[in-house]
């Protein structure tokens, strides 16, 4: 219909506006999955995947989620816009889950929680908020290493990135001394980001007594604490245990900011369910902060998507579903723990001389195996075991059916 329009004088296709746009670098994790897909080896394993898999290696939709969906469908609700800050019953339940329903912060209404686009969206809103309102140094201290997306998020918001020691390669464990040492030197009023539990990518978490010391030194340095909690319940199987650090810091007098994700612990990945919380001095301050969070949210996406938040709220606020959820999240965490144990047992059985205790000590979805890049490459080339170059494996990709193979493969490249 319009083909002949191009014959007219007005139609000149210029050189593209985008001639100077470079190809963006390929996502490293995506690259792993792409290569995995192409591999024809029937024994191949994808240990790059950051999503839970059941013992058949399949995505797992929680029963409590299906039940919640049925309840919601029956209600025949309308599709009117949510408020900018999201579904109120979700935000409230989200905060209660993290802090505990009896928390003094909630009782005095001195916090604000907004619904966000899962963990990423929460971190982004948090970063934007700090960039605009934080009068201290705009330096965000991340543990070394941290989730790959932390750096670009904070950087794009205008913050500077710094690091504190965290992972000790020689033990595949926590460099407690190094962490305290570095944290004690952080300039006052800087921002420190802490993984609440199931550190990504290492799986290495501080023990409670270590958290206490960290809290003390952070307080001495007067740092603003930014907790990232993406695995509550998923780490130990117990939601209160996994939130212990967050709650301790608050009790200890820190007015934290907190990002939460329900991607993993409710399996709601693609529904994008998360929350961002600011603990304030008092209710009045919380109201002011809330008003500013809305100003930050509106020009990005106006208001958040309802579906996942409604599912999460229904689960959290319906006693039978909540109980079912706690069982299921416990089940997911247990399967991971079992796979860790079986992997180590398999390696021992194969006669491995190495100490694999860290595989059991580490917690959550990921395991920093300690494998070197050359060993990782051999695992991929010779055994079709796919993982990221840093030696990180997703335990979620391990099943009772393939853990033996994995133990054989790892032993082969490390003996």
């Amino acid at each position, binding site marked *: 219909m319009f083909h002949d329009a191009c014959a007219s004088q007005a139609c000149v296709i210029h050189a593209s506006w*985008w001639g100077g746009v470079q190809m963006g670098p390929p996502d490293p994790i995506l690259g792993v999955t792409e290569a995995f897909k192409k591999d024809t080896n029937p024994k191949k394993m994808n240990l790059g995947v950051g999503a839970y898999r059941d013992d058949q290696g399949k995505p797992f939709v929680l029963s409590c989620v299906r039940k919640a969906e049925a309840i919601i469908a029956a209600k025949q609700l309308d599709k009117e816009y949510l408020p900018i800050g999201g579904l109120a019953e979700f935000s409230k339940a989200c905060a209660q889950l993290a802090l505990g329903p009896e928390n003094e912060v909630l009782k005095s209404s001195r916090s604000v929680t907004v619904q966000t686009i899962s963990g990423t969206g929460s971190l982004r809103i948090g970063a934007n908020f700090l960039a605009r309102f934080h009068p201290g140094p705009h330096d965000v201290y991340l543990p070394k290493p941290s989730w790959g997306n932390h750096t670009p998020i904070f950087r794009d918001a205008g913050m500077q990135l710094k690091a504190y020691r965290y992972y000790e390669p020689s033990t595949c464990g926590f460099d407690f001394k190094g962490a305290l040492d570095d944290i004690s030197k952080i300039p006052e*009023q800087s921002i420190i980001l802490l993984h609440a539990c199931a550190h990504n990518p290492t799986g290495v978490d501080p023990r409670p007594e270590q958290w206490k010391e960290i809290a003390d030194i952070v307080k001495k340095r007067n740092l603003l604490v930014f907790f990232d909690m993406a695995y509550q319940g998923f780490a130990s199987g117990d939601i209160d245990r996994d939130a212990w650090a967050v709650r301790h810091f608050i009790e200890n007098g820190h007015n934290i900011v907190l990002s939460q994700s329900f991607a993993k612990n409710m399996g709601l*990945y693609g529904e994008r369910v998360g929350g961002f919380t600011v603990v304030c001095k008092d209710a009045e301050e919380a109201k002011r902060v809330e008003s500013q969070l809305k100003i930050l949210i509106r020009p990005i996406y*106006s208001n958040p998507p309802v579906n996942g938040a409604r599912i999460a709220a229904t689960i959290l606020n319906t006693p039978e579903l909540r109980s079912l959820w706690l069982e299921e999240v416990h089940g997911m965490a247990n399967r991971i723990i079992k796979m860790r144990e079986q992997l180590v047992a398999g390696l021992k059985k194969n006669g491995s001389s190495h100490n694999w205790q860290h595989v059991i000590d580490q917690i959550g979805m990921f395991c920093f195996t300690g494998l070197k890049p050359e060993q990782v490459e051999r695992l991929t080339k010779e055994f079709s075991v796919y993982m990221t170059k840093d030696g990180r494996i997703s335990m979620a990709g391990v099943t009772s059916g393939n853990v033996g193979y994995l133990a054989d493969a790892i032993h082969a490249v490390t003996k």
Partner: protein
Amino acid sequence: QGSTPRAISIVPQAAPVAVFKLTQDFNNDQFPNKVNLGVGAYRTDEGQPWVLPVVKKVEKIIVHDDRLNHEYLPILGLPEFRSSASKIVLGDNSPAILENRVGAVQCLGGTGALKIGAEFLRRFYNGSNNTKTPIYVSAPTWENHNAVFSSAGFEDVRPYRYWDAEKRGLDLAGFLGDLESCPEHSVFVLHACAHNPTGTDPTQEQWKQIAEVMMRRKLFAFFDSAYQGFASGSLEKDAWAVRYFVSSGFEMFCAQSFSKNFGLYNERVGNLTVVARDADNLKRVLSQMEKVVRITWSNPPSQGARIVTITLTSPELFSEWQENVKTMANRVLLMRSQLKAKLQALGTPGTWDHITDQIGMFSFTGLNPKQVEYLVKEKHIYLMASGRINMCGLTTKNIDYVAESIHEAVTKVQ
């Protein structure tokens, strides 16, 4: 209680977003005959929200499909959603699509699509990270346009002449004048149809003139298409301007929203359609947009995109959707013609042709702030200070009251 780094204590209270405050005030009003002509969502003749019948059908399909799970979508979104959504606005047989130079990013509503487009432009358009590139938005425009572009880093968001308050129509001369005098490479945010808030669209001839100047002066066309189908009832008709620009050879963006035409407001379904010169440029552009998405929301929500995709890719459901869209468009058209007729019958001073000349959800009544205040305070009829009314707020039950109240406002308040 607790120690606060001095940070948060200096956060000032922000003013509420006007349109939401209006609805809040409406909700708090106890007057039995109150009318809400504020927020932009469709309402039935009973004044109720309307979940499209086809949407209800598709939601049932989704809930009963055990093969579906909640896994992450790709960063750029559901592939079938992106392609079918782009086809909706450009036409199945768009030469640009056939030439493989059309791509898309699934985004969170129309706002999200504008955001990703804006962030990309700030980084890569007119140089590198050129925050001084002027962004032109119509005077008036949707109030969030300004914020989207300025929060993306653009320092110079300016109005282009659009609404002629005196003649209650398009200020074409002003519009063309701004197109001729603006700096080269300026970005223009164009409303594809059903201009928000005025309801006044350029005619096809006027669009041709606009396109000619934009092409000649190397201006960037960024379409905002939030009402396709909803305006006239015809998807093709409402996409005419976008398709004309594509056929004229523009490289351009079109931010699409499915909030109104699918009634999926709270599922946040949007699509940023990218038309590039060729497939290679397109590929590079999408790869960089992916990076922007990753640090904003990582990947988009699946529910709404699934609903739209299932509907658009099934001939039966697609037809049903078109009927649902016509239902909405027709009710709005009916309210327009009835409101005009009643005002004319009342002999309300002024001309009221603009009510039926204008198109889409909104009408710029031409009422001044004092008259608006009168309506809100004295008559409990809620509308924006600009005089913008949402035609969907009118029903056969309240239209007489509204017409009479407008008559009062115009005759009593100057």
